[in-house]
């Protein structure tokens, strides 16, 4: 009844083993290159046989990703990668499934699919490349573009409020939420590894520069000269401290977070301390709201909690029904309960 058991490759793999023959066709200078390189770098370290890895994507610049990975891959239709992945993972819980999507693919046309996959806690990893623009259709504003964004489709500024991907994932009940950015090789690798390890949906937002249609959209945040003052690097159990001189912190004033200067006599133990394993969503919710220029932008793992996964529940039901009723007998099933002979 099941998938035939096949030999599993045991050879040690290197980054090169994950590079496909397909020529990479992103614009030179695109942030996607570095994300691809870092995913390929991390893959051999996961100790997963290459044949058990599947990259699934939708439509958009980022969604070309599977073609460049020498693993199994499905480049699907716009917005629906989470649904394709749901079928695949339920059919084959043994596979390591990675979804690559973008702000348009995942949060506009595919908002519903992403929402429900997160809610179900399917055990897959989502890499959402957020460049706050539609690249493949040549530069219209996206659901994460700031209000007032002037693009070809909004010559007088976009009227929409942007969507916060982290709050979206959190509200859907995501069990693993993290953010990283395309020029931070070390940060990306760490998070990709943690995402792969997490049981349940791992949702990773990656700030990605589209140098053609939205160049520098994140520069104010992660430009090397200002980065340490504008980014809050999350570490479990450590207080919220940031700044080149590590002299700024965040504490709660009533229900409101505020940035404080540690040189002003504020004591470190007044600061908020990161707890990524907290089951409630309060801290993750607070972090998701931090944005430039009022707050430093958090990078790292916001939330990581254990929960049962969708496919595991389905497997459990099958197991328990077989225990209860025995393996189904087709003849009996076809006969039903009220057969008669003529």
């Amino acid at each position, binding site marked *: *009844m099941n*998938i035939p058991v*096949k030999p599993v490759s045991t050879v040690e793999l290197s980054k090169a083993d994950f590079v496909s023959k397909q020529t990479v066709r992103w614009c030179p200078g695109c942030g996607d290159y570095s994300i691809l390189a870092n995913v390929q770098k991390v893959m051999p370290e996961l100790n997963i046989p*290459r*044949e058990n890895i599947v990259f699934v994507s939708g439509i958009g610049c980022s969604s070309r990703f599977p073609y460049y990975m020498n693993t*199994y891959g499905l480049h699907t239709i716009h917005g629906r990668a989470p649904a394709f992945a749901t*079928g695949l993972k339920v*059919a084959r819980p043994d596979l390591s499934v990675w979804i690559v999507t973008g702000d348009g693919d995942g949060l506009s046309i595919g908002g519903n699919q992403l929402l*429900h996959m997160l809610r179900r806690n399917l055990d897959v990893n989502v890499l959402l490349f957020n460049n706050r623009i539609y690249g493949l259709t040549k530069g219209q504003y996206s659901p994460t573009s700031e209000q007032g964004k002037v693009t070809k489709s909004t010559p007088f500024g976009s009227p929409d409020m942007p969507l916060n991907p982290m709050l979206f994932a959190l509200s859907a009940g995501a069990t693993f939420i993290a953010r990283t950015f395309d020029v931070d090789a070390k940060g990306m690798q760490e998070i990709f590894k943690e995402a792969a390890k997490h049981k349940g949906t791992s949702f990773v937002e990656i700030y990605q520069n589209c140098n053609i249609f939205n160049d520098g959209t994140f520069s104010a945040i992660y430009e090397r000269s200002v980065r340490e003052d504008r980014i809050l690097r999350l570490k479990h159990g450590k207080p919220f401290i940031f700044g080149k001189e590590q002299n700024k912190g965040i504490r709660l004033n009533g229900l409101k977070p505020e940035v404080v200067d540690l040189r002003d006599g504020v004591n470190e133990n007044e600061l908020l301390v990161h707890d990524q394993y907290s089951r409630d969503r309060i801290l993750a919710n607070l972090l998701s709201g931090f944005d430039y220029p009022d707050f430093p932008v958090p990078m790292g793992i916001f939330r990581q909690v254990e929960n049962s996964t969708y496919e595991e529940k389905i497997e459990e039901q099958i197991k328990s029904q077989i225990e209860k009723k025995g393996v189904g007998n087709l003849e009996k*099933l076809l006969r039903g309960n009220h057969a008669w002979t003529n």
Partner: protein
Amino acid sequence: MSSVEAPLRAKSVSSQVNIPKTELEKASIRFAGDSGDGMQLTGTRFSATSVMAGNDVITFPDYPAEIRAPAGTLAGVSSFDLSISSNEIYTTADFLSVLVVMNPAALKMNLQDLEKGGILIINSDSFEENDLRKAEYSENPLESGELNDYRVVQIPITKLTLRAVEETGLSHRDGVRCKNFFSLGVVQWLFVRSLDQTRDWIEDKFKNKPEIAKANVLALQAGYNYAITTELFQARYNVPPAVLPSGEYRQITGNQAFSLGCVAASLRSGLSLLYSSYPITPASDILHELAQYKNFGVKTIQAEDEIAAMSSSIGSAFGGVLAVTGTSGPGLDLKSEAIGYAVMAELPVVVLNVQRGGPSTGLPTKAEQTDLLAAMYGRHGEAPVPVLAPATPGDCFYMVLEAFRLALKYMTPVIVLSDGGLANASEPWIIPDVDQLPDLTSNIHTDPENFSPSNRNPETLGRNWAIPGTPGLEHRLGGLEKDIVTGEINYEPENHEKMVLLRDEKIRRIVKDLPPLELIGPEKNELLVVTWGSVFGPAFSVINELQTEGYPVSMLHLRHLNPFQEKLGEVLRNFKKVLVPEMNLGQLSRLLRAEYLVDAISFSKLQGRPFLISEIRNRVLEFFD
């Protein structure tokens, strides 16, 4: 006036005279009442009893789209038809011999289908002024004389039921709910049926609620006794057992047959089954049914929407399981983009489409055959898909197996077109021998030597199915055009044209793999009636009759709609005239005209109900005036 005002108090049993039994070849009965009156249950029980008595039985439930429209209104009427016969039957009868109505609304909605002189059983307790107003009667039909053409039997069913169940101490509300079993008791007596089977069924069904079981049995018995003692009827009717081909039978609906077919396909292919769908009338029962078969390894997903249902099915097919989804009406539109993707990625997925009245939300609970052209052409680009259509409820089982056979062999999505009639209608079905079912073992490719996802079987053009978990076969599939040799992305104009032709040719080659056409009647004749889907039932009944009467008419029923079977053009051209009765505006006739340049004449019906035998008969007879 022929109405019998039955007394409340039953006469003593000893006063019972010998009521004559009339032998009938066939009879048709309809139970009609409010959605909450339990008419579907009553009808199902009566058909089960008739089946056990050896009749051929065809059932046809008709229920409103609203779950509980206000009680007593016309919108809330629900009914259940069954035809029983001592010969083989293929469709429910045009007119009813017996109509049971539980309220004025049911009377108003159904009276036109009762034959003149037919028996009309009425629950007279529900003809108060208020009931009449809700049914939009200005005058009480029990008094107006408008029922004079029928044999009216008024019974105070509600009061008698309450009296019968009194001893159980049930609340008034629960007591009233037993009245459907009272009416069933009356009809069981009328058709000389034993109550044993129904009693057993009630006791089993309500085994956790013994007081409800007891009350229902009491109501059933009370109805039966009431009919005995009151001489309500001048005759009882006996429909003798039918001479059906010998074998083991069960009753089956189209949706059940689909579900069983899916499980059978899983076992015959050695692949686990994954059914992903979004709830939609009238296809939801397939999901309900399959969700119960976890011990067969069946996995079901209730997807978040129709698009996700289709997409997750394709994802699961990539993973190497038997992928199937079900839908209806607007759901097919929503699935069309993803079906096109499955054409492009060449992955095996079966789409069960239970057609209903459209466009848009249309008539959710009624039958139509209006999705044929959508199944054929409803996708952008050249996206050919095999299309199949079962003829009867039981045939749904075999068409699912056939759909999987084609999907796996040719690596393609396949659409199966059922309809709201087949989905819920039931018929006796010969239980198939499991070993005789087609072998669906498919070759999942495992050899890395010279592997390309574009390698094909040179005969079928079916692409190699290589699934994740197989070392050395890592490959990418997508919706972008592929190179005909390597399977990598290729946008070159010549390559695209080659790929379009190849995908087309692959579906055309299925023709060679189909059984030959089977004509009902002579190969050359004056008139050929061509049908597909559920029109088989009424058309076959008509053609049988007309052929016996000597009319030069033949019939051809198509279960393969894309591609058509071999020699169809030649067959059509052997007839002077070709008539295509369809529950649409001529979709098959258009295909036949376009494909074979024959003058296929369309005969349409779009009332959300099957053709009547007389409608097809009269249309056919016009050719012989």
